[in-house]
């Protein structure tokens, strides 16, 4: 089934309580034809990876504004690999300084979307880079 919608998990790791961006993205991707799982605030990497596994998503989008991205994002990536989900695309967004981007990419993040990124940019990236499925 090639025409089935892509399934994406939008998750907020860590302790910041600002999920406006995550919700806007969830709604925007819905309008782009994605099936978006949203899990709410204050997720641990373990919670996010369990949700990704149970939902069998094609991509995980991490929204983070607290500054803890260098701890939490690589942890999500390594847990995904540990659980055999290295084919799941990981992207990050929120407030992430440019100088941290290379390290995050090294950890396994496919793209970092900062403020001002359009929904269409994210949608096109996910469509172009998500794993091809059985």
């Amino acid at each position, binding site marked *: 089934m090639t025409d089935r919608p892509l399934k994406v998990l939008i998750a907020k790791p860590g302790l910041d309580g600002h999920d406006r961006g995550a919700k806007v993205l969830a709604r925007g*991707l819905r309008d782009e034809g994605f*099936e*978006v799982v949203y899990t709410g605030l204050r*997720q641990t990497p373990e*919670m996010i990876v*369990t949700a990704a596994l149970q939902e069998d998503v094609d991509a995980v989008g991490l929204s983070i504004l607290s500054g803890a991205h260098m701890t939490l994002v690589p942890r999500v990536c390594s847990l995904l690999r540990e659980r*055999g989900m290295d084919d799941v695309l990981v992207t990050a967004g929120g407030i992430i300084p440019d100088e941290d981007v290379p390290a995050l990419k090294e950890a396994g993040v496919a793209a970092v979307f900062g403020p001002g990124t359009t929904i269409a940019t994210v949608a096109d990236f996910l469509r172009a880079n998500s794993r091809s499925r059985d």
Partner: protein
Amino acid sequence: MHSSAALPAGPNEAARASEADAVLELAGTLCEAALAGDRRSLSRLLTAVENRTPLAEAALRRLYPLAGRAQLIGITGPPGAGKSTLVAALIAELRRAGRPVAVVAVDPSSPITGGAVLGDRVRMQAYATDEGVFIRSMASRGHAGGLSSATAAAAAVFDAAGFDVVLIETVGTGQSEVEVAATADTTVVVEAPEMGDEIQAIKAGLLEVADIIVVNKGDRPGAHRTAAQLQAMLADTPREARPGRPTPKHPEVLVTTAATGQGVAELLAAIDRHRCVARAADGDSARFKRAEAQVWAVLVDRLHDRVRSLEGAMDVGGAVTSAGGADVASEKPTAAGEMLRAVASHDLDPYAAADAILVRLIGGRSAL
């Protein structure tokens, strides 16, 4: 027959056969792993079921004989009544008793873009990493009847994998969602206080399928009055079925406050009670009905596929069955295309056209 036209079909058929073998083998591997407790394999099987791929059919053939032990509980009701919160509270109660729980949470797909926001997990985060809990969200994807077959199949996969209870949560606003809930052993309809007056309670639809009615948000004013009104309306339900009519349901009406857990233990007790009473009263009628619905759904799916493949042969795209909604009749000058144009110009009626297609279907395939 050794016509030259038949020659290229040989390798194609061989390729198709080896592809089918590969699917069977993958299904077998995933089933074995899922049965041994591998959650990733279980998850992949659920995806196959949701997408209705050939892998799903192979897996279900393997798993179906192992299923049939789990208790299926349907939770339905209008948006915002507190279904997800109640499911979370039920998970807490069931986990306290040490029972493994699976959840199939269905949220609507957009009829316009096909996208969906699946937000039921938000309320269920307390059990996000509990190995005895598996939550799977599904978008309704708008296919008539298909949703109930997908959820029933997902429940069978969970059942075979050893989950003791499967909670199926759907928004109870449309026919197909009501059908989903109605295929469970016990259907719980969740309402919020002030859901309307007695007239709402006697309208056809949601409340009719309820085995148990829950007025949630019991801490809000009016909750107990709403429960009393529902009880008063249901008191008029006749005790005995008239000949040839379905047995009337006599749902218990309960008040819960899912957010605090108040009344949830009582709800679970009522669910177990209903299951025992229903079994004693009419054997396994819920299971029989579910079997009937499943076989029907598969049959309709298969007929649908046949019609589509026939369409393909006749080059009319999605024109015969407009299930996709957006399909427009092809402009190609084919027999079927001409027939559809004849219907469009009112020279032929749709019934005659459908009959003609049905005749081709039955005449063309020996299996039907």
